[in-house]
C-alpha cells in the first residue's frame, strides 16, 4: 500500500517525487532513534543558488516536524556539520529522552485544574461539605 500512499499523500513518508529525487540525488547520512532517515545531496554537492549542501529528512510513519531529535535538528539546520551518528555524545543523567510535540495526543500537557488531568473538578468557590448520616 505504500506505493498508493505515495501517490496521494505527502504526510506518510513523502511522495513519489521525493522518493525519486532522494534515489537520484540523495545520500543517506543516518537514522535517529525514531527511525527517521536523514539525507544530504550526494557527495555533499553544493547547491548553486544556496551555496551549501542540501539536507532533508524522510519521516518514518507520519510526518511530524517536531519528531526530529535535538542532535539531528542541529545537523539538519546547518547549525553543526557533524551528524550525531559520527559523534559520541553521552547525555547527562538529568537529560530526559527526546519526545515529539504531544499536543493533540492523550499525552498532551494538562495544566493544573484541568478536568483532563485528574478527572475531578478542582475545588472552587461555593463548594461545601455535605453532611452524611453516620448511622
Amino acid at each position, binding site marked *: 500500500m505504500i506505493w498508493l500512499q505515495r501517490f496521494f499523500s505527502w504526510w506518510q513518508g513523502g511522495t513519489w517525487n521525493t522518493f525519486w529525487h532522494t534515489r537520484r540525488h540523495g545520500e543517506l547520512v543516518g537514522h535517529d532513534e525514531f527511525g527517521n532517515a536523514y539525507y544530504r545531496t550526494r557527495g555533499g554537492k553544493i547547491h548553486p543558488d544556496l551555496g551549501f549542501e542540501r539536507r532533508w529528512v524522510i519521516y518514518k510513519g507520519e510526518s511530524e516536524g517536531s519528531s526530529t531529535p535535538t542532535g539531528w535538528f542541529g545537523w539538519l539546520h546547518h547549525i553543526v556539520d557533524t551528524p550525531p551518528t559520527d559523534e559520541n555524545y553521552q547525555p547527562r543523567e538529568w537529560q530526559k529522552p527526546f519526545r515529539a510535540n504531544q499536543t493533540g495526543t492523550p499525552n498532551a500537557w494538562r495544566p493544573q485544574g484541568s478536568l483532563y488531568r485528574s478527572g475531578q473538578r478542582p475545588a472552587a*468557590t461555593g463548594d461545601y461539605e455535605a453532611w452524611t448520616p453516620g448511622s
Partner: protein
Amino acid sequence: MTKLIVDGIEVDVPAEFTLLQACEQAGKEIPRFCYHERLSIAGNCRMCLVEVKGGPPKPTASCAMSVRDLRPGPNGEPPVVLTNSPMVKKAREGVMEFILINHPLDCPICDQGGECDLQDQAMAYGVDSSRFAENKHAVTDKYIGPLVKTSMNRCIHCTRCVRFTAEIAGTSDMGAIGRGEDMEITTYLQTAMTSELSGNIADICPVGALLPKPQNFRARPWELNKTPGVDVMDAVGSNIRIDTRGREVMRILPRVNDAVNEEWISDKTRQVVDGLKRQRLDRPYVRENGKLRPASWTEAFAAIAARAKTVAPEKIGALAGDLVSVEEMFALKQLVEALGSRNMDCRQDGAKLHPQFGRASWLFNTTIAGIEQADALLIVGSNPRREAPVLNARIRKRWRAGNFAIGLIGEKADLTYDYAYFGAGPESIAEFVSKTPKDIARPMILVGQGALTRPDGAVVLAALAKAAHDIGAIKDGWNGFNVLHTAAARVGGLDIGFTPGEGGHCATAMSNGGVDLLFNLGADEIDVAPGAYVVYIGTHGDRGAHRADVILPGAAYPEMSGLYVNTEGRVQRSDRAAFPPGDAREGWAIFRALSDALGRKLPFDSLGELRAALVAAHPHFGHVDEIAPADAGSIKDLAALGGAFDKAPFGHVVSDFYLTNPIARASAVMAECSAVAAGGYKQAAE
C-alpha cells in the same frame, strides 16, 4: 454653639466639637488614620493637619484641637480654618511621606488592598517617588490569636487597635512597646486576645497590619457582592454586611447601626462563615430500617404524610430553634394549627417566658441605645459578655462615662467592668431591693436566661418584675425591665405566639414523649426522647439531624430573606446573599409544599404573601427597623404573681461562647477559638 469659618463656609457647631468634626460639618473631608469617632483621641498620625488663622504659625492637628480653643479675629469675627490651603497640602504631603518611609510596597499582595485608608489617601497626598534610600524598618509579626493575622511591617502606629481593646472591648490585650521608630504593637507575651470583639480591630486598622486571619488571601474586596443582613448568632440582631463571591459567603462585616451594634460585631458573628460550608444538609433523608437514606422531596413528603395520617392531631407538635426567621416559624405555626394541634414551642431552653405575661415581659424594654441613659444596672442570671458581647460593650461604654452603678446576681465573671456582687441565687433579689436607694432616676434590671430557664423561672421573673417596681425602674417614659435573650429567633417566636396553646405541650413535654409526630425546625439544643417520629427541618447535621426520622434541608440565615426580632423587640429584615446548597430550600417554602402533601394547603404562594399574612396577624412586623413599645402595665400584673422560688444559684446558659449553635459548631475557626479559650489563651505552638 460656636461659629467658625471653614474654607469660607460658616458653620455653627457645639463648643466641644473638635476641628475635624467642625470641618466635616462644613462638608470638608479631612484625611485621618488615628482618629476614630468611637475611640479616644490620640493625635499621633498627624494626617488631619489644617491651617488655623490667628493660631500658631504651623499646621494644627484638627482631631486634637477643640473648637472652643480657637481665638476669634481681632474684631470679634469667627475663627477661620483652612483645609485646602497650600500650607495644608504641603504639610499633609510631608506627613504622608514620613508614613510611607516605613510602609512596605505590599499593596499587590496585601489583603487590605482596595479598602485601605493609606492606599486611598496616598492617592490624594502621596508623591510619586521616595527620597528615602535607606532600608525600611522590619518588625516581626506577632501572634495575637486565631482571628487576626498580623503583618507588622505595615503598621503605621495609629494605636486604634490599642485604644479599641482598652476602651471598647475592655480587655487591654494589646499595647505598644518601644519608642519612635522602634515602637511595636503587640499582645506583650504573644498570647491570643481574650476579647469576644477582637475581630473588630482588623476593621478599624487603617492599613493591612491587622487582617482577618481566616480570610487570608481568599478574596479581593472588589470581587465581592455586598448584601445587608442581620446576624443570628445572638439576640442583639447586629447589622451585618454579607460579602459573597459566586455562591460562597466569603466574609461578614458589621454595618453601622447606632441603635443596635454601633459598628462592632462579635467574633462569632464575623467568623462563623466557614460553618456555612461544613456539615450542610443538602438533600432530604428518610429513615428506613433504622438508617437514614437519601430521598427525593416527594418521597420525604410521602413518608411524613403517611405518618401524619396515623397520628391524632393532639399528638402532633412543633419545635422552633434559635436561628430561624419569623416567616419560617409563622408558616410552621399555620401548618401545625391547620393539622389541629396546639403543641408548639420556640423555647427549647425551657425559659419561662410566655405571651400571657404581656410583651413587656420578654423584651429588652430599655432598648440597647437606652442603656446610655440609665443610671444603674442590675444583672441577674446573665453573663452579657458571653451572651451578647456587643450589648456588653454598650454597658461598658455607659460604665466608662461614669456614675453608673452595676450590680450582679448570679455567677461571678469578668464582665470587663466593675460591679457589686449581691449573691448567687434568687434570695439575693430581696437584699438588692433593700440596699438600693429609691431615688435613682433611671435604673435598669437585666434578666438573663440563666434566671429564666430554671423550673421556677416564672417565679423568678415575677420576683424581678416586683423588684423593678420597688426600685422605680418602671415609670412614665422609662421602662427598666429588660430580658436579655440568647437566641435570635426567640423574641420573634414569642411575638407570633409560637408557644403552647390551650392544653398544648411545652418543649420539655414534647421532647419527652408528649407527641408522636414532631416537626423540629432547627432546634438542636434539645434532646428528643425515642418514640416520636421527628421531622427535622434544618441546615446542619447536628443533634437534631441525628435524631430525625425525616430530614428536610433548609436555608441558613445568609441564604434566605427573613425577619428577625432582636432582644429589644426591633424587627429587622435580612436579605438573601447566597443560595441554599444542593436541594435545600427556604423554610417557608418547605412548609408550603409540605402542607400541600398533607392536604392542608397554606394560603400563600410567595414570601410576599406570607409576609402580608404575617403583618395582618401581627401588625408590628410591618414596621421594619422599628421597635413597637410594649405596655409596661403587664409587668405590674406579672409582679403581682408572686410564688416561692428555689434557693439554687443561677446557672449560665452560654458555657462556650464560640460553640452555641449548629453553624458555629460546624465551623473550624470557632472550634479553634474555643480551644484557644479553653487553653487559657496561651501562645500558639509555632
